[in-house]
């Protein structure tokens, strides 16, 4: 299968601080849900920020459909077809749900298309329709996450990057998030998922990539990664060492 996104030897970090990504390489194949797991500080979120253009790449390169995208601005990368839903969900708290959805389609120049897709999302998510005129900041965490994920439908990107969509949500809501994620995938989007809860993340994914200390440790089909003894070592060994 051809690679959709290719990260090669990327080094990146915050400001003048130390590198968090230490020459990371990985590939993303189209049509899959690819889960990135790893202990705290492995560089999972940092990787997504680097791909999204929020963080400068110090060396290495990122290619999307063969074309280099490192060095582009976040708005340019979105236009190429990569949509990032960060942990903070990137909502506009003082805009209504509807305005947030419209903002998601900022890059669409076609007003009729924007309106049609906004309506389609509201059609699909009755809770959002119910709260269409409510400020996004007044909704529950689960509803906000739903809005942030549903909003990606408006631009129909090729890749959606989800950074810990389950963070801070109740278990039954988490299940709902994974359902929405699969819905996005069934619409033809490729999903790159970062999950702190490695087991839940891998169970809902096709491919698993394990990071540690800013590099790719190993990867493989999600069910295999799930039972790989190195995972136990990485998580349990680390925490056992910390406890000792």
């Amino acid at each position, binding site marked *: 299968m051809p690679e959709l996104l290719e990260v090669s030897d990327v080094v990146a970090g915050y400001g003048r601080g130390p590198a968090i990504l230490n020459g990371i390489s990985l590939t993303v194949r189209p049509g899959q849900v690819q889960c990135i797991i790893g202990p705290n500080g492995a560089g999972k979120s940092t990787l997504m920020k680097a791909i999204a253009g929020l963080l400068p790449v110090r060396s290495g390169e990122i290619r999307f459909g063969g074309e280099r995208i490192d060095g582009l601005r976040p708005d340019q990368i979105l236009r190429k077809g990569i949509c990032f839903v960060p942990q903070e969900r*990137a909502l*506009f708290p003082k805009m209504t749900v509807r305005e947030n959805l419209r*903002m998601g389609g900022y890059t669409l120049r076609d007003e009729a298309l924007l309106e049609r897709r906004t309506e389609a999302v509201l059609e699909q998510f009755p809770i959002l329709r119910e709260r269409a005129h409510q400020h996004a900041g007044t909704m529950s965490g689960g509803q906000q996450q739903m809005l942030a994920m549903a909003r990606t439908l408006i631009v129909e990107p090729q890749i959606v990057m989800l950074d810990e969509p389950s963070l801070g949500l109740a278990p039954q809501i988490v299940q709902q998030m994974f359902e929405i994620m699969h819905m996005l995938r069934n619409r033809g989007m490729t999903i790159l998922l970062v999950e702190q809860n490695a087991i839940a993340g891998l169970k809902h994914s096709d491919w698993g990539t394990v990071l540690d200390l800013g590099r790719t440790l190993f990867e493989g089909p999600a069910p295999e990664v799930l039972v790989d003894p190195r995972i136990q070592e990485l998580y349990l060994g680390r925490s056992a060492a910390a406890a000792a």
Partner: protein
Amino acid sequence: MIDILQVLVLGLALGGVYALMASGLTLIFGVMRIVNLAHPIMILTGAFVSYWLFTLYGIDPILSMPVAALVLFVIGLVLYKLVFAREAASAKYSEMTVLLTFALAMSFDGLLGALFSNTQRVTTPSYGTQAIFLGDLFIPTAQLYAGIASFVIIGGLMLFLRYTRFGYAIRATTQNRAAAQLMGVNVEFVSLVTFGIGLALAGAAGSLVSFIFSFFPAKHWEWIAILMSLVVLGGMGKLMGTIVAALLLSVIAAFVGTYAGSTWSTMTFFLALFVMLLVRPQGLFGDRIEEA
């Protein structure tokens, strides 16, 4: 009763002009976190544009508002590119802008003083000294026209922010800069144009100022504190808050001026600021301050 109505109407008209004066300041702070201490001198620059267009060519200052706005818009773009864009990555950006804009204020003050001297000037269109009587109510036409013009521009600004694509981009950048980027907004470009729009609003306000106040370059020092107090009272970068604060404070100041003497009326702004910072530091329309 008629006295109260009289003071109320005059307070509202002047409040409209203050609201217009502060709107650009709050817009710029909202989008870029620039504390623009040079805002009042930019208003006076706009006042000089209208003053000279009237004095040399007899063009009515209300009609020359678009010219003053355009001149200041261009000055805004140039200043942003020259001064602010290169500092945008700095961690101490907001603090630095205080110094930068203070330096700009002094430079423009000196420049305007050198060009036009610090004599008092006022644009004198025919309506400058007229008044309308509604029963016992006395309304100076200059104040009335300035107030109406201000409300029209502010209304236009609000419609622009609410319904246009660029307005969405400005609001989004104000509320969550990183999120706006992720939605495809080129926030640097939005910052550039918003700085231009902010100064254009200052320029337009200047045209009105030119015929309701007598002015001279150094007068901007008086306004800095008043305008800043309106921005803080409104909730730092909240346009609606700033407008409400401007109207409210101007009306209160008008009453204080009438019943306690005009020396006390300016004090109203600072007293209100002081009280607000004590009881509700986030301002009228501000969010609770969450960041440490």
